[in-house]
């Protein structure tokens, strides 16, 4: 019996060795280790053996069984690994081929600039106010210290609809309207972005429709130094912390004093170059202390209340920031232009 077991062992291990697939290996297992297999049969004949021989043969049979089983397991792992290896090889793809595109849109450059400015002033406690684009002559001009016949009120620049209705030429009427709602008592702290219209022929630097952002702060004891501080905060956040600002006298009918704000030129650092026309400074916005006539017309006591206002053109800021040379790009909506500014 001992010989028979050893014979079975050699035979089985040989078959395991020869098995090339998992199925073949399964058959080997069934053939040798199954209930009807030869090892079971040998054990069944153990009754004929002596008491002394029984445990020895029993032990041997178990050893053989284990050896065959281990060999099968080992072979199985090996075959499985090989099969996986094969599968991985087959499943390999060209990772450099393009992916399935996901349609993603993006904001218009002007919207990005406007929202950036909005967020900046929201952070300083300003509100955003909006108003009608078709305005009355009163709010667009008269309430802003531009009575009928005022030289700065060039009729040729304005799209009139009737004598009293027009396309607003600036967003300042929103300021006049907002002040008017406060009964001359509450402070105002607002910016008003929006579309405005001028009677211009469209060319590289003119557009009959463009955008504006104006700001207004009215309260007791507002100082011109406050205007300077707010504008500097804005300029440094918008254009970089190393930018300097400069105020210089200017003229607007609704502010007195009126100033224009320049920032130091980024291109040349103030040395003078073609971007800043040799001056070292770039004009960014107009501002000033609210004219007492404007305050009085809105119902404020101009002895007690003072304020400042400022206004800027997002197109100009976008053009400066991105080196865009033609204002018409903003309204032609060429997909090749728009998509350049979609990245966040």
């Amino acid at each position, binding site marked *: 019996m001992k010989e028979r077991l050893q014979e079975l062992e050699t035979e089985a291990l040989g078959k395991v060795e020869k098995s090339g697939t998992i199925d073949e290996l399964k058959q080997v297992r069934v053939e040798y280790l199954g209930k009807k297999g030869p090892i079971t049969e040998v054990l069944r004949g153990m009754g004929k053996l002596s008491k002394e021989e029984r445990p020895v043969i029993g032990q041997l049979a178990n050893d053989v069984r284990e050896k065959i089983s281990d060999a099968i397991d080992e072979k199985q792992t090996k075959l499985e690994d090989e099969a996986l290896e094969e599968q991985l090889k087959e499943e390999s793809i060209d990772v450099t081929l393009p992916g399935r*595109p996901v349609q993603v849109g993006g904001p218009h450059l002007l919207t990005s600039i406007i929202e950036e400015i909005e967020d900046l002033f929201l952070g300083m406690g300003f509100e955003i106010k909006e108003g009608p684009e078709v305005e009355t002559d009163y709010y667009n001009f008269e309430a802003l210290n531009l009575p009928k016949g005022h030289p700065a009120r060039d009729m040729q620049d304005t799209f009139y609809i009737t004598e009293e209705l027009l396309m607003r030429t600036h967003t300042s009427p929103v300021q006049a309207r907002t002040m008017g709602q406060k009964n001359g008592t509450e402070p105002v702290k607002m910016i008003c972005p929006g579309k405005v219209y001028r009677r211009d022929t469209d060319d590289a630097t003119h557009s009959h429709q463009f955008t504006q952002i104006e700001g207004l*702060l009215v309260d007791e004891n507002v100082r011109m130094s406050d205007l300077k501080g707010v504008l500097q905060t804005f300029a440094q956040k918008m254009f970089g912390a190393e930018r300097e600002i400069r*105020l210089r006298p200017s003229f607007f009918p609704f502010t007195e004093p009126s100033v224009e704000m320049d920032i130091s030129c980024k291109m040349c650092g103030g040395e003078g170059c073609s971007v800043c026309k040799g001056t070292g400074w770039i004009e960014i916005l107009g501002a000033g202390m609210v004219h007492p006539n404007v305050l009085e017309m809105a119902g404020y006591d101009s002895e007690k209340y003072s304020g400042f206002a400022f206004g800027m053109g997002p197109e100009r800021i976008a053009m400066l920031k991105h080196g865009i040379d033609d204002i018409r790009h903003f309204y032609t909506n060429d997909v090749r232009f728009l998509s350049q500014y979609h990245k966040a």
Partner: protein
Amino acid sequence: MLISLNWLKELVDISGLTTNELAEIITKTGIEVDGVYEPEDLPKNVVVGNVLSCEQHPNADKLSLCQVDVGEETLQIVCGAPNIRAGQKVAVAVPGAVLPGGFKIKKTKLRGEESSGMVCSLQELGVKEEDVPEAFVDGIFVFPEETEVGADAVQLLNLDDSIIELDVTPNRADALSMAGVAYETAAALDRSYELETPSYEEVKEKATDHVSVKIEDAEANPYYGAFVIKDVEVKESPLWLKNRLMAAGTRPINNVVDITNYVLLEYGQPLHAFDLDRFGSDKVVTRFAEEGEEIRTLDDKVRTLSSNHLVITNGEKAHAIAGVMGGADSEVQEDTTTILLEAAYFSPRVVREGAKDHELRSEASVRFEKGLDVNRVAQAGERACELFENYAGATILKGVAEEDHLDREEKEVRMETEQLNNRLGTDMSTDEVKDILRRLQFGYEEKKDVFDVQVPTRRFDITIFEDMLEEVARIYGYDRLPYTLPNSSQQAGGLTQAQHLKREVKTYLEGAGLSETITYSLTDKTAAEQMISPELKGEANGAIRLAMPMSEDHSHLRLSMLPELLRTHRYNTARQQQNLAYYELGKVFISEDEAHQEQPKEVVRAAGAVSGNWVSHLWQQEKKEVDFYVVKGIVEGLAERMGLTFTYVKGEVNGMHPGRTAIVHCEGETVGFMGQVHPRYQKDWDLKETYVFDLNMDLLLELYEKEETFAKIPKYPSVSRDIALVVEEEVSAGDIEATIREAGAPLIKQVKVFDVYQGEHMESGKKSLAFNLLYLDPERTLKDKEVEEAHKSILEAVASKHGASLRE
């Protein structure tokens, strides 16, 4: 305004500053400098020469052979200028000279004759042709006889001048004169300047012996002064005067015209010279023109006047449009000997009307329009008289014939040191304020830090405290103001719900694949009135038209944003851009009155347009063109983003495909539409199949603000059932869905179409619609029997309402 620094430095001490430094100071304290022009590329070695002889060149018809004395030697020069003559003093570029553009002058031979140098025209020396006096435009420049031979021509011609160009704002009309700029510069640099008082010899004969002046409308013409100047010799102006005019960009004509132009530049006061012998009477009457009255002006045009044009007449006939242009009949000519010189103040409004109506804006009219120094009107006339005496050999009659209604009082403005500091955020002392007023040359009285400032009449822009605040601040220096932040009442700031929602909608649409555009609100009439959303009722009163559009393309206010969005598609399609997906958030303008007299209703809308491929993955041959349901998916997603439920009903909109348009409803209100652009429109506009949507954001916002309650997450399981119904093909899925929801209420929670089938195995004219239904009771687990009952009543309802039968 162009400022010659060679002129300015004779008025104010500007030594020690470069042109750029000076420009920077002027910009920072008062007036913006628009440009700085330094003499560049100056001619070198150009001297004054005396043409000793001038003969015909032996070998060339059009050339002259000249002997020219240049001081140290006599040069033989071949010259092609037609106006060269013996005895002239001319500008000679001697051998070794360099002309602008790097052009070097060498000894050479021209047609066989030696030529050592070149006789120059002003253009060759770098003067702009439009500034060159007429007589010298086509030839060489000729110096006055007394000019010294051998002198530096560049210096004599003032070519080494630096020019500063000022951009004068409307309030600073005082700076439209050299005197004004000199006061400004003196204040900025803290140096001195005073306008000199003119002086000349007056004869006994009086101006009033020859002319009288009568003003009919003192408001339109508060002052008119007439000087009488005799024995005038009309000739060329002296070189220095020509130089100053040329530097300021004014072409010299003759001494009479040049002198009035010079005083205009110096004083900012326009003057006009009439030939008194041609004036036709001894009285000047200023009045408004008769309607239809005619005048032939200096430019030889006959102009028809109206009753808002002020004219200068001889009692009968108009000889000038006040402040705008003189008449041709009394123009100063070569033979003129007696001049009536007008120094007047016309109201800005009257001159503006005249200049506008006749399209004659000039240096003179601009100054009248912006205002003049009331104390400098007659003085400017006197200054001209002084120059006439010196440069036209004239005799000045005593006094001036005038009528005078001008108020010459200086205005008084009160200010306090503390008030200035409070407004500026500064810490100035009263002495500092006094020092600023001294620099400005403003008179004042001060008591206990309270100033009463006497504003000189030259600064007629200053009338209130805030004006003085500006004067003090700018001389103090804006760069010296501290940086502070408002200590005003704190306010949180932040977006309103509407503003927040608009941003959300943008973010959603961009995530859904659409890019933002901004198009024009003004468009042509046809585009303005197309594709109007039904709830707007915009057709009723039509698009609002501008009174004076620049072009018909931008003449009407849009009632829909889609036509302009489609123009964007057309533009990009024409540029080989295939797959387009755009949206815009903007306003349309709905007139609520037929006559368009009232402010229109402005409605915020979100509109989009999509064409081309929606999915396109080339190497996997995966490609899907955009269709109705792609855009509907975007709109449904938007509703979901806003927490709203939209329903869609087939409808018609002008410009849209009648079979592929849905009107969008929400909570019983129409909120917009979506669908395919009409194929005819697509063809006319060269568009591919294009799908659009257009939603009323104002309405959606109102609905959004209502919906704010929290819906609990269901605790109990739902039951899902599928049904397939066979119906006539015209029956819409939406209608069946509505019926299912109604009949299945309250247990039915969700109805979804998952299959639409038509074709084989179906009776023709019929279709099959498969729905997935979800039943749920939030309070407990549903029993099979309840579901069965609900399901049965749904089947009965769809059968009776839509003739639907269960598909086998």
